[in-house]
C-alpha cells in the first residue's frame, strides 16, 4: 500500500502519526480515503478540490506538477511539501 | 524647454547631423533620435558600461556625455564594428568563446575591448581585467569574456582595428 507522510500541521487529525499506509491510485484518492478515517485532514491540505496554494506533492522523491491528480504506485511514498519556485 | 541645437559629428565613419535638446545625453540621442539601439542602457549614470562607445578612439560611457558636447567628434558604436568583410575578430572571439549569456553587456564590452587592443595589442590578463572593469556583466563571471579578448588579441585584432 502507498504510504502518505503526514505534514506536521496535519498530524493532530491522525493522532500524531507521521506516516500512514492507505489505499488509492492517485494522491486525491489517498487523501479522500484518509479523510474518511480521519476527518479534518482534507480541509487542512486542500481547498476547492485542489491542494492548498503553497503546497505541492512529491511522489517517490519527485516533485509533481500534477497535484492531486498525480498517480501513485502500490509501493509509493507520498509527501506534501511547500511549493518551490526557482530563479 | 531650452532651444534645440544642431550637432555635427561623424558616426561610424559617416557624417551625421542631428537635432537635440541640451539636456539629452549622447546615449539618448543615439537610441531615441537616431534609432541606433545597439548601444545599451543599464544605469544612465556611468556605472555599468553598457552604453560604452568610442569617441576619438577612447572608450566613453555615452550616458555621461551630453549630445551637444559631441560636436565635431568622431564616434564609433557597436553598429560600426563589423565590416563588409564580416565580423570583427573581437565579435568572432566572443561567439567562439561563449563570452555572452544574455548579451546585454556585450556591445559595451566589445567597444571597451576594442579601445584596449588598439592601444595595447598584446595585453596581459591583468591589463584586460583593468581595462574592462568599468563594464559590468552579471551573467558570465567574466572568465570567458577575458578569454575572448585574449583570443581576439591572438587573432591579430589590433591590425584589424588599425
Amino acid at each position: 500500500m502507498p504510504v502518505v507522510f503526514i505534514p506536521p500541521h496535519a498530524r493532530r487529525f491522525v493522532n500524531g502519526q507521521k506516516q500512514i499506509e492507505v489505499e488509492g491510485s492517485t494522491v486525491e484518492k489517498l487523501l479522500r480515503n484518509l479523510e474518511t478515517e480521519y476527518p479534518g485532514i482534507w480541509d487542512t491540505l486542500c481547498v476547492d478540490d485542489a491542494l492548498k496554494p503553497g503546497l505541492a506533492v512529491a511522489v517517490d522523491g519527485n516533485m509533481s506538477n500534477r497535484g492531486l491528480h498525480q498517480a501513485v504506485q502500490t509501493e509509493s511514498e507520498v509527501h506534501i511539501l511547500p511549493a518551490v519556485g526557482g530563479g | 524647454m531650452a532651444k534645440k541645437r544642431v550637432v555635427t559629428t561623424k558616426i561610424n565613419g559617416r557624417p551625421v547631423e542631428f537635432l537635440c535638446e541640451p539636456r539629452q545625453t549622447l546615449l539618448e540621442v543615439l537610441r531615441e533620435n537616431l534609432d541606433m539601439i545597439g548601444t545599451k542602457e543599464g544605469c544612465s549614470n556611468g556605472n555599468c558600461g553598457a552604453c560604452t562607445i568610442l569617441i576619438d578612439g577612447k572608450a566613453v560611457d555615452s550616458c555621461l556625455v551630453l549630445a551637444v558636447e559631441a560636436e565635431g567628434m568622431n564616434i564609433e558604436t557597436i553598429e560600426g564594428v563589423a565590416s563588409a568583410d564580416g565580423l570583427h575578430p573581437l565579435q568572432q572571439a566572443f561567439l567562439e568563446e561563449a563570452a555572452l549569456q544574455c548579451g546585454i553587456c556585450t556591445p559595451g564590452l566589445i567597444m571597451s575591448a576594442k579601445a584596449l587592443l588598439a592601444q595595447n595589442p598584446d595585453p596581459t590578463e591583468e591589463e584586460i581585467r583593468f581595462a574592462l572593469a568599468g563594464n559590468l556583466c552579471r551573467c558570465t563571471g567574466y572568465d570567458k569574456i577575458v578569454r575572448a579578448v585574449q583570443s581576439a588579441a591572438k587573432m591579430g585584432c589590433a591590425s584589424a582595428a588599425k
Partner: protein
Amino acid sequence: MATAESDKTGLSSKGKYKVIGTRPIRPDGVDKVTGRARYGADIRLSGMLHGAILRSPYAHARIKSIDTSKAEQLEGVYAVITHKDFPDASDKIAELGEGSVNLKHLSSNVLADDKVLYKGHAVAAVAAETTHLAYEALDLIEVEYEPLTPVLDVRKAMQDDAPILHENQRMEDMSPDATTSDKPTNIYKKFFFEQGDPDAAFEKAHIVVEREFTTATVHQGYIEPHAATAVWSAEGKVTLYTCTQGTFTVRQQVAELLGLPLSYVKVIPTEIGGGFGGKIRVYIDPVAVALARKSGRPVKVVMDRASVFEATGPTPGSWIRMKLGVDAQGKIVAGDTEIAFESGAYPVSPIGAGCMCVFSCYDIPDGRIIGYDVCVNKPHSAAYRAPGSTQVAFATESVVDEICEKLGMDPIEFRLKNASVEGTRRVDGVAYPRIGLVETIEAIRDSEHYQTPLAGPNRGRGVASGYWMNAGLKSSVTATVNGDGKVSLVEGSTDIGGSRASIAMQFAETLGIPMEDVVPAVVDTDSVGYTDVTGGSRVTYATGWAAYEAALDVQRQLCDRAAEFWEVDSSEVTYDKEDAAVKGPDGKSFGFVELAEKVTQASEPVVGRGVSNHNEPGGAFGTHAVDVEVDPETGKVKILRYTAAQDVGTAIHPSYVEGQVQGGVVQGIGWALNEEYFYDEAGVMRNASYLDYRVPTCYDLPMIDPILVEVPNPGHPYGVRGVGEVPIAPPPAAIANAIYQAVGVRMRHLPMSPPHVLHEILKKEG
C-alpha cells in the same frame, strides 16, 4: 581544465553523441555581438508615448489622498493612472507555474492601494510624449501621506510590538501545534519539519556546535532594467512587448490584474538582459497596459536603475540559528535549525525552499527545521538563483567547517562521510533518487587546485557544498520540416543564456542532423503552446525534452510519408539517426534532406510537436574550493583561485554549462563579499546605484575553473540536469571558511565586506 577533469571521472558524455557535448556557435549570437538584437527598451512603435512612475519617498505610510489633476493638464500628457484604474483584485492566489502569487498583493505592489510599504513603492503613473515630459508630470502629482514607523529587520519584525504591515495578516502555523491567534502579525507562515528525535540525539552527540548567522538583502542585479511596451487593438485586445523570463506567466498576471480574458493578451518576448528569478513577477507590464488603454496610444515604460534596486527583486535578508551534533567518529547525528526570511512588503519569500535545502547535502537521521516568512518594509522579495539556498548553505557549511576543525578532520573527508546519497532521507521526509553529490566532493579532492598546497601569510582555503532541487514544469515546442532540409523550431522559453542552442542541439541529436540545420525561434504567447518560465534550471531539461519529443514526432511522420512513397506498410520503415535517413525494405532509403524536399513537393507538411510536463528527480549538487588572501590592515578579501565542481547530468553545450557555473559562482562571490541593501533608520536605501551597491567587476576576480561532473540524470532522455542555480549557493560559506583559515576569524554575517572582516580581526586581536 573543465573537460579534462570530467573525462578523468570516466562519466563524460563525450563520444556518446554526435551533437550533444560539442560547442557550436549559438544561433542568436551574431545579432547579439553586432548590436542588432532587440531587448526590452529597444522597442519603438509609431505614435508611442513614454511612461514614468511616481514612487513613495516613505518606507511605510498611509496614502490619504492623490491629486493628479495638475499632471493631467500638462501639455503633452495623455494619461495618468493610480491604483483606482485597476479593478478590485480578489484575495485569490494565482498559480504561476513556478510559485504562486496573491493577486491582491500583486495588484497593490504594482500600484499602491491604501498604504505604501517600502521606499520606492509605485503610487501613480503618467504617459506623455517624451520621457522628460513624463517625469515633469510626476512632479505635479500631489500625494498626501501619513508616515508610519517602518520595520526593516526580520527579528524586530517578529516581535510582539513591531509596526504591522498588514493589519489583516494572521500567522499560518505549519507545526504540530498548529496554533491559531487573532493577533495581527508580520509573520505570514511558520514552517516545520522534523525527522526522528533530534533532542535525544543531541544528548548523545560527542560535539555540538550552535551558531547564529545573518545575511543582508541582495539584488539579482541583471544589467537590463525592466521594460514593457503595450499597444491595444480597436477590438480590445492588447499586445505587450516585454523582457521577461516567462511570457505566459506575464500574460496570466496582466489578464488577472486588469480583468481581461487571458486570450486577449498577447505577450511578445524581446531579448532579455538577465533575470536570475527577478523577471517573473510583473511590475511595470500592467502599468504600460493600463496607460496604453487610457491614452489610446502605444506606451513604453522603462525602469531606471534606482527603481530596479528599490522596487524589484531582491532576495531576502535572513537570520539563521544552526545547531549540528556529531559523534566521535565524525558522523552527523543531529541537526536543528531556525530560519527567518524577510519576505519584504508582501508574503511569500523562498523560505520553503530554504527549509528544504538547509540539510540537503547531509545524511541527518534526527533533525528539525523551523522556518518563518516575515514581512518587513522592503520591496517584496523575489526568486534569485536557487532561491533560499545560498542563505542556508552559508549557515550549514560554516558550522560543518567548525565541526571539522574541532574533530581535526579534513573537510573533504567529513563531507564524504556524511554526504547525501541515493536513498538518504532528507529532514523534510523526501528520499533521494540517484544523485551526484559524492562525485562533486571527489572531483574537488582530486582537483589540481585542492592537491596544490597554498602557501603565504594571510591566505586560506575553504570548501563548501550546495544544493538546488531543479524544476521541470511545462514546455511546448513545434518543428516544421522545410523544403531545404532544415527545420524551423518554435519554442516558448525565452533565451536568457544560450538555450536556443541547447534546445536545438537536443533536437538535432534526436534526428541525427547538424545543429546548424535547426533554426530556432522564441515566439509570442499566440504562436506556441503553453510554456512555463525560464527559471528553476528547467529550460534545457524540460524544453529540451519537448524538443526531443517533437523530433520523435518528426521521425514518425517522415517514416509514414516514406512508406506512402514506397507503397509499403509504415511498420517496415524506420528512422536511422546515425545516417539521418529513413530506411525501408530492400535497401530503400531517403536521406533527411532528400525526403524533406520530396515531402514539401508532394505530401502533407511535416510538423512535429512536443510537450513536456515532467519534474526533475533528485536535483543538483555542487562542491567548491576557494583560496583567499585577507589584508589584515583593511579587511579586504581577495579571491586567489576558485574551483567549482558540479554534477551537471549531461553537458549539452559545455561552454554554456561552464558559463552558468562561472556566472553563478561570481554572483555568490558578490553576495559573500560586497553586496547589500544599506538602509537608513527611515527605511531609505542609501546605495541604490551600481557604484554603491557594488557587484563584482572583472578586476575583482580570477578565472573561475568549473569541473563538470556528468552523472546522467536517469529521468531525462539525454541525462540532462538543470545547472543554472546550484553554483550560487556554496561561495559565501566556502569563502567564510577560507577567511577563517587565513586570519582565524569566523564570519557569521554577509556580506563579509572589509569593515565587517576588519571588525572581527580587531576584536580577535583585542
